């Protein structure tokens, strides 16, 4: 019989390549190479260096020696801060995700954007705003002191708990974003079935929802664990000096590069072990939605009480989350040096903003950051999604290796990654098309790309794990090639996950400081470095005003993406 041939022979080469399932390999092999060349190879050198020039295992012996326990203490502190951070972030993030995804109440749309705002907090001024809020002379402790006429401030944020509060505040969005993507894709009939079997809400949470969210929780847990291990500013600010990152910093300051290498190696070893444990845990079970057909969406049953509780909880939550940002705004509006012992700043001014808006140099870094963030994030989407697809759907050797390769740049302290990159790109080589990338525009986007790839990668693979594979098969059976299936079916159905990762990656790129400061050049000064310079010059108000600008910028991005995703994002059930 007469048939329409599906593929006409005059297909372009590109079309033919993209339609082949091996296209995914075409995409991930350069990724493999890049990661190998610029992550693993320098990292391997670090590893070698960690054994010192002739001292062999000495550095390790020294690290683990019981005579001077500072390294071991640091390791322990880092690990337990990280573990607790993961837990607190998970609680806050998943709870918020659930409240905002499942309950409809007045203001939900606004809240769902506001809840992301902490992500926008610029790293440097951001942490400071915490000291202004909860530190010894912070608004809240002093406010309470004044209110009740206390001798002393009733409490202050300090030490490990301070670090954890800051970590929770700044990192719960990892959980929030990945979990809300997963909740969107969760088959509601599972909950119904559990309810029907008599399970209470709590049990449904414990036994159905949380386990089904495992891939996204694992994803976020990995990200948070590693970033906490590599966290520097927060422990510094709260005076927790005995952390791995601090030890690395000290070793490098003292010029003891071998020891620094040892410490970096151990740090990444811990992170990678965590990764491997998590992978194992996750792979034990299946999380694909399997129901036959497609079930009814959002269940109708909502108790009134729950609704009220969720409104209150969300508002209180968001208020707490917004406080540091409000504080930042407050500082940006107050006259430098006048705010001494008062609860709130006594004098206000718009001068800092005026200074910013009249200086033509203000906009350049913003524009730089946007550009570089955009380029890097674009790369992240392409490679991150491809890698995630390969990881979840394809069978090939070296999956775990690829996973580790992608995660390592996230697990290492920013300084170490940046130094590795400088070493790799300060000479001409093929990966950079025989160019010296250091000092050019491209080095920063490349750094952002490598460092933030795990964000897109993780959150996309979590989404993919949830998606029913037979939907893809249906598309193939209808004649759609790999590429079309990917575009028309996989992408829309995992869009929420991809978007979550993209947002994280983009916002991180805008705010990245630790690596940026080591590789920026005058023409590519990013926003974070600009803020740093204001701070460095102790133009505190101006720095905060700059920070506020950054927040506004990110808010705009968030709002736009929320608008874009609405309606186009499908769900996996």
């Amino acid at each position: 019989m007469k048939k329409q041939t599906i593929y006409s022979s005059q297909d372009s080469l590109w079309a033919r390549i993209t339609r082949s399932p091996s296209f995914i390999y075409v995409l991930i092999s350069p990724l493999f190479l890049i990661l190998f060349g610029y992550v693993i190879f320098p990292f391997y050198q670090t590893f070698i260096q960690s054994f010192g020039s002739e001292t062999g295992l000495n550095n390790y012996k020294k690290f683990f020696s019981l005579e001077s326990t500072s390294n071991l203490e640091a390791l322990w502190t880092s690990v337990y801060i990280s573990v607790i951070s993961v837990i607190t972030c998970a609680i806050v993030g998943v709870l918020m995700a659930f409240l905002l995804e499942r309950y409809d109440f007045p203001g939900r749309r606004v809240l769902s954007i506001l809840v992301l705002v902490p992500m926008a907090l610029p790293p440097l001024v951001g942490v400071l705003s915490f000291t202004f809020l909860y530190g010894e002379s912070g608004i809240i402790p002093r406010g309470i002191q004044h209110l009740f006429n206390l001798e002393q401030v009733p409490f202050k944020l300090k030490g490990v708990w301070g670090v954890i509060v800051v970590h929770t505040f700044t990192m719960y969005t990892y959980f929030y974003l990945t979990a809300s993507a997963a909740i969107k894709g969760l088959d509601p009939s599972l909950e119904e079935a559990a309810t029907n079997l008599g399970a209470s809400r709590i049990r449904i949470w414990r036994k159905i929802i949380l386990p089904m969210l495992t891939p996204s929780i694992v994803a976020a847990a990995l990200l948070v664990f590693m970033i906490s291990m590599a966290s520097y500013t927060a422990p510094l600010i709260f005076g927790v000096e005995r952390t791995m990152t601090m030890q690395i910093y000290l070793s490098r300051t003292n010029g003891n590069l071998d020891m620094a290498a040892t410490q970096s190696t151990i740090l990444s070893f811990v992170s990678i072990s965590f990764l491997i444990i998590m992978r194992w845990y996750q792979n034990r079970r299946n999380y694909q939605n399997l129901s036959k057909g497609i079930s009814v969406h959002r269940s109708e049953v909502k108790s009134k009480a729950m609704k009220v509780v969720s409104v209150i909880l969300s508002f209180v939550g968001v208020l707490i989350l917004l406080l540091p940002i409000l504080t930042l705004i407050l500082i940006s509006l107050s006259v430098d040096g006048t705010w001494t012992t008062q609860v709130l700043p006594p004098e206000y001014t718009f001068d800092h903003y005026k200074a910013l808006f009249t200086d033509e140099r203000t906009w350049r870094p913003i524009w730089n950051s946007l550009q570089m963030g955009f380029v890097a994030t674009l790369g992240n989407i392409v490679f991150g999604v491809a890698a995630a697809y390969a990881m979840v759907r394809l069978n090939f050797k070296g999956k775990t290796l690829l996973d580790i390769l992608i995660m390592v740049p996230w697990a290492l302290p920013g300084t170490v990654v940046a130094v590795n990159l400088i070493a790799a790109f300060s000479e001409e080589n093929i990966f950079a098309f025989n160019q010296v990338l250091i000092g050019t525009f491209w080095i920063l986007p490349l750094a952002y790309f490598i460092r933030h790839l795990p964000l897109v990668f993780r959150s996309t693979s979590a989404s993919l794990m949830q998606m029913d594979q037979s939907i893809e098969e249906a598309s193939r059976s209808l004649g759609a090639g790999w590429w079309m299936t990917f575009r028309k079916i996989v992408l829309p159905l995992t869009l929420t996950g991809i978007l979550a990762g993209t947002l994280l990656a983009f916002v991180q790129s805008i705010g990245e400081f630790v690596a940026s400061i080591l590789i920026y050049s005058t023409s590519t000064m990013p926003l974070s470095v600009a803020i740093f310079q204001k701070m460095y010059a102790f133009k505190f108000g101006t720095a905060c005003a700059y920070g506020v600008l950054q927040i506004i910028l990110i808010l705009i991005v968030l709002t736009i993406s929320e608008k874009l995703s609405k309606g186009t994002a499908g769900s996996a059930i």
Partner: protein
Amino acid sequence: MKGVRLQDITKTFGKVHGVKELNIDIQPGEFFTFLGPSGCGKTTTLRMIAGFYYPTEGKIFFDERDVTRLQPNKRDIGMVFQNYALFPHMTVNENIAFGLEVRKFSKEDIKAKVDEVRGLVRLEQYGGRKINELSGGQQQRVALARALVIKPDILLLDEPLSNLDAKLREETRIEIKRLQAELGVTTVYVTHDQTEAMAMSDRIMVMENGYVQQIGTPQEIYNRPVNRFVSSFIGESNTLEMTIMSIDSEKVVVKNEQGVTLTGLLENSSPLAPMNKGETIHVSIRPESILQGDGENTLTGEITFVEFTGLSVNYIVKIPGITLKVMIINTGGKLLQIGDSIQLSIPSRSLYFLGE
């Protein structure tokens, strides 16, 4: 053992209406079946009983208790979902045990009960399997086991056997019946298989397009449908438009435009049919009640279609004036071919008179 009463239930989805003005009174311990074409509102009604939808209007009672807005998990209902809704992250055993764990049974109890019910649905070997390693029918059986094992007050089954083969379906059907009789569970059953409905149900509700058409015992529904929809929906039926020529206390003679005349019994008429001389009514004749050979209401025609179903041979027979579907039981005899001539007779008690 609980009765279920639906009072003036209406459910709309936005502008679409799911079901309208339902009034159902299901007796404690009864096996009650919803029957109706796809999309008529069966699942919607079931979901309201389970508590996953709130009725837009009306009330639901379990015995005398108003449960219209009661939480689903407080209703003690076992339900098999049309789409199974198995927990993909659990094994077969874990899925089945879930409801028992909720009810805080001891470990050993749970194991025993799970093993038992797994045997009942023929999944002995599959306890440790992941759900995504099961075939469609196996998954359906897990869903069934999960609902049965908790021995609920009320059992809601939404096409629970649709993916099983005839043999297994029958076995399971018998098991469900046995359990239901043993435990006295009130059971509401949705099926598209009318044989199944007929065989299992105490009473059947026939729905169409959100409205109830008829509620009655299987025999009532089958033999005395209230209208043409029920008559044609339940089983095969030849429906002929005919005019009453003569009528007495026993016999009715009808004739169609082409002059075919048939004789039937007055007692076989729907309460809605206008049984007066000269009225035009519908006559329903089941294909299987038509016999091959000589007898009452003998007709001769030509075969235009042959279908072998194993159990029987179905013919479509063209008789001058009418076309009849005829079902002749296969007793291993020879098949007639298209074009062959065949003699048929219709026992007078096989004619049923309907209104609109």
